[in-house]
């Protein structure tokens, strides 16, 4: 019984976290809908474990637990790729910022004829 409360609490916390970042991030609408569906599914799965098993049987997976595991793996993959792409984008912005700062602070050499070297 306690686990049910904990799990639902976790889902609610996740929703809150997501909503707080809502305005700042420009996540695609599809991701948001997917996330909402996942949240609802999470609550249903906690309250009606048998329903998950029934869905699992319906799609041809033995147990509800296995279905959850498969779903988790897929979700993890998506999350990883999403993070990777986000990092790439950030890196590019970061490079542009660094470039702008670098170009502003460039140093022109003092005027003088090139000196001979023995290199």
């Amino acid at each position, binding site marked *: 019984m306690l686990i049910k409360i904990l799990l639902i609490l976790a889902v609610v916390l996740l929703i809150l976290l997501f909503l707080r970042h809502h305005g700042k991030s420009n996540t695609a609408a599809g991701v948001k809908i997917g996330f909402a569906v996942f949240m609802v599914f999470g609550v249903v799965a906690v309250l009606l474990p048998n329903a998950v098993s029934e869905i699992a049987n319906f799609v041809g997976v033995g147990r509800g637990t296995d279905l959850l595991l498969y779903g988790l793996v897929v979700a993890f993959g998506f999350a990883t790729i999403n993070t*990777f*792409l986000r990092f*790439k984008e950030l*890196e*590019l912005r*970061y*490079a542009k910022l*660094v*470039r702008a*700062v*670098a*170009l502003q*602070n*460039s*140093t*022109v*050499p*003092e005027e*003088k*004829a*090139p*000196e*001979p*070297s023995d*290199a």
Partner: protein
Amino acid sequence: MILRQDLTVLEDFVAEWSDVWLVVPVYNEAQVIGDVVRHARQTFPNIVCVDDGSADASAERIHEAGAHLVRHPVNLGQGAAIQTGVSYAKSRPGAKYFVTFDADGQHQVDDVVRMLKRLQAEELDIVVGTRFLAGADTSHIPLLKRLVLKTVVMLSPRTRRLGLTDAHNGLRVFNRTVADTLNITINGMGHASEFVELIDHHHWKVAEESVTILYTEYSMAKGQSLINGVNIVFDSVMRTGSRH
């Protein structure tokens, strides 16, 4: 008197390449960068070194040697440094030709002069250095390095289509057209593949010129490890995937 005459001759010589900018990405090369810049300055008056967040005295050595200095406040990688250098060079008055040149003394000034003359004579957009032109002596290149570089070329259909034999040569000479469109987004070492991709995408007229790479003990110790090739391939694949 003699001294003054020498200076005039030197100035005439220098003026010949006053529309050329050498772009040198530098990361912790304090040991050699001074000599490399001084030596190149005997031929090319305009050199911009991009200090890519070095922790050593690279910046001081660059300034002493008389090159323009642009400093990344943090380390980004060679690709980003080249892009910064080209951005800087093309904003300088009279810049017409651009050269990417390594900081560790691997590249030869004579090769650059030859590549520039070829770019002008054949009205090309970009000339890329190669170690593997047919008939070239490659015995000075470490065997493992040779094998990996050739495999990379073999695996890249784009490189083969363009008729390039050495996609990861850092020595390149290009004109204003290329410099104005150039937008390197791979910060790290994978930028060489991005260069090839850009050549293909923009239909730049490209040619290869045989160049000599000096494998000194210093450059071998500093140079990128072969395992880094994995990173390069990964970067390229991810780019291809995200483009289409």
